[in-house]
């Protein structure tokens, strides 16, 4: 019978049906970090349990690490406590930890694929909603809470409700100046921030198939912003080429055997879907969010919505967002003055993202009133960028060149907005207060658009911004 990847992976990892009707699902890879796990280890100890498959859990530190000075102990005592707790827990339970001394530290969703830990056909869980990123390699990956982290530590399993599958087919060529980030922002805008609740999103179509693994990660990363806990792309030759030779990927004869299994786990050509959506890639423009959730976006040359033309809850939502953002209904987002430019995060903190941003700023300078920073997603991303001389390009243009971490995506470290500052950001969430100042404002966009905004000092249309290509 024809099946989707989700169904195949689900079946292969099903332990049993639980009495309440949920599925007990085996978790193939458990990724942990310092923020959502200390309480889980405490709960485990309180019940006298140990980690049952310590080799299937991998730790790193990302949310709380300062990006300017990463020497230990951290100046922030609370951050140091969290890091120390993670170290202690990993040591006590025999869990491998990739901290700064390993050269492999970074945002958990950047290092998993980078080291080849993330592989097609796996189930992956992590106490972080952007775990959907790993679906780019054909894994079924999803975010969980701390009590569920405890469940995975104790049993390597989760009690899960079944998911439906929506295939989102994107077809055609992307226009110049339009990136994977614009595609996922378009999907969220079209289907809504809660349109994906109960669904796994399968991203398909020739546009997605032509994308690099980095681009697919950007797409899958923001599935959760559309309400879908899981997003994936079927594994193909690009996936296999990406994995070959990576540290934890199968090697030698095993690699060929693995490729066969991975291919077999992909959705069958005539698999049935619970829902299907099609998108014309060529119609998508460079996208910028104007509101307080990632579904509130416009093309850079499109007018902002007017609450007068909306009804009820929708109207209230537009009013609230425009009021918080200090933007005017019907005006253009282009020309909005920015204070901060941030390139980084698990959405857009990979080498290819840094390259795109560097292309735009090469030979230019950040506007005098803008504070600009580039935060590589991992230590290897930083090193690779430095080998290409990207650090010089950024520094000469007036960007801060930082150490790896989550940085200004969520403000659990010293990188934060101040007061009502507006940030052009390559991250994933524009919620009120997300970037550390309760009144701070976030405009989500692609890394190239962030770089162009940094130079211009305001939101610009990347298509009108002659670039070094």
């Amino acid at each position: 019978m024809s099946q989707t990847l989700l169904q195949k992976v689900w079946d292969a990892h099903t332990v049993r049906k639980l009495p309440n009707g949920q599925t007990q699902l085996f978790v193939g890879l458990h990724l942990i970090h310092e923020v959502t796990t200390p309480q889980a280890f405490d709960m485990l100890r309180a019940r006298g349990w140990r980690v049952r498959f310590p080799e299937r859990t991998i730790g790193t530190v990302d949310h709380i690490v300062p990006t300017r000075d990463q020497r230990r102990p951290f100046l922030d005592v609370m951050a140091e406590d969290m890091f120390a707790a993670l170290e202690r827990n990993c040591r006590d339970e025999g869990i491998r930890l990739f901290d700064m001394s390993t050269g492999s530290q970074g945002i958990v969703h950047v290092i998993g694929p980078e080291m080849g830990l993330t592989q097609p056909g796996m189930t992956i869980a992590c106490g972080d909603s952007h775990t959907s990123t790993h679906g780019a390699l054909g894994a079924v990956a999803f975010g969980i809470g701390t009590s569920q982290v405890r469940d995975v530590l104790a049993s390597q399993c989760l009690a899960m409700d079944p998911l439906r599958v929506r295939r989102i087919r994107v077809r055609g060529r992307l226009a110049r100046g339009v990136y994977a980030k614009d595609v996922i922002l378009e999907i969220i805008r079209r289907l809504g921030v809660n349109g994906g609740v109960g669904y796994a999103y399968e991203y398909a179509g020739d546009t997605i198939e032509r994308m690099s693994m980095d681009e697919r990660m950007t797409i899958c990363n923001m599935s959760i912003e559309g309400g879908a806990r899981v997003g994936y792309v079927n594994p193909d030759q690009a996936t296999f080429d990406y994995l070959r030779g990576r540290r934890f990927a199968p090697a030698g004869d095993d690699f060929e055997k693995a490729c066969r299994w991975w291919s077999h786990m992909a959705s069958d050509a005539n698999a049935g879907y619970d829902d299907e959506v099609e998108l014309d890639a060529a119609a998508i423009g460079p996208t910028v969010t104007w509101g307080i959730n990632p579904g509130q976006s416009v093309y850079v040359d499109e007018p902002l919505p007017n609450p007068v033309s909306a009804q009820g809850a929708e109207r209230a939502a537009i009013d609230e967002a425009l009021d918080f953002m200090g933007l005017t209904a019907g005006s253009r987002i282009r020309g909005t003055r920015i204070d901060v430019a941030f390139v980084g995060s698990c959405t857009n903190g990979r080498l290819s993202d840094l390259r795109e941003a560097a292309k735009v700023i090469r030979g230019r300078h950040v506007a005098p009133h803008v504070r600009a920073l580039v935060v590589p997603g991992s230590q290897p991303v930083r090193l690779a960028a430095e080998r290409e001389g990207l650090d010089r390009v950024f520094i000469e243009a007036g960007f801060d060149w930082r150490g790896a971490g989550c940085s200004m995506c969520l403000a659990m470290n010293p990188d934060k907005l101040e007061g009502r500052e507006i940030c052009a950001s390559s991250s994933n969430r524009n919620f009120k207060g997300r970037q550390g100042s309760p009144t701070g404002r976030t405009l989500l966009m692609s890394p190239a658009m962030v770089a162009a905004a940094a130079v211009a000092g305001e939101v610009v249309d990347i298509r009108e911004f002659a670039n070094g290509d």
Partner: protein
Amino acid sequence: MAIEKISQVHGRALPVRGDNVDTDRIIPARFLRSITFEGLEAHLFEDDRKQLQAAGQHHPLDESRYRGASILLTNANFGCGSSREHAPQAIRRHGIRAVIGESFSEIFFGNSVALGMPCVTADATTMAALMQTVESQPETDVAVDLNQMTVTAGETTYRIALPGAARESFLDGTWDATGLLLDRFEDVEAVAARLPYVAGWR
């Protein structure tokens, strides 16, 4: 692990109006810088509360008429965004024992089940009626009944919904899943032994 069966929750209600109330708003990230969940309730909706205060208004949480509420009322897609369990932890530690809304984010919903805090849904019309009742008569006793799948506010009873598995978990007292997941560990090992990336490539 002591099993607590949850079939009914009742008490005063706290209306928090709005769609897409995200977990950054429920508990801002700076309060996650801790290795425990203790004290989180003090910062529940902190930024929203402060901003309303600055504007001379009050968040429902700061209105004395809702003090001691054990049921939170909200609208659509409550708890979206970050997977932080700190959000339902802060709500529960504040004294809330059930949430009624139009819909919930999946991760928030699952986290709440694991804490024994049912998140039940009702349609927009029902939510509007419930909120209106509670706002005009905050002393109204609101009773959620998971056996009958109803909520009663004063004299009026409305239908609520909750996915079957979660409902079973509350009624059976199996909402804390770990014990259940460890019950037949040989089955877990058997699945691991069948997976080529665990057992070895063949």
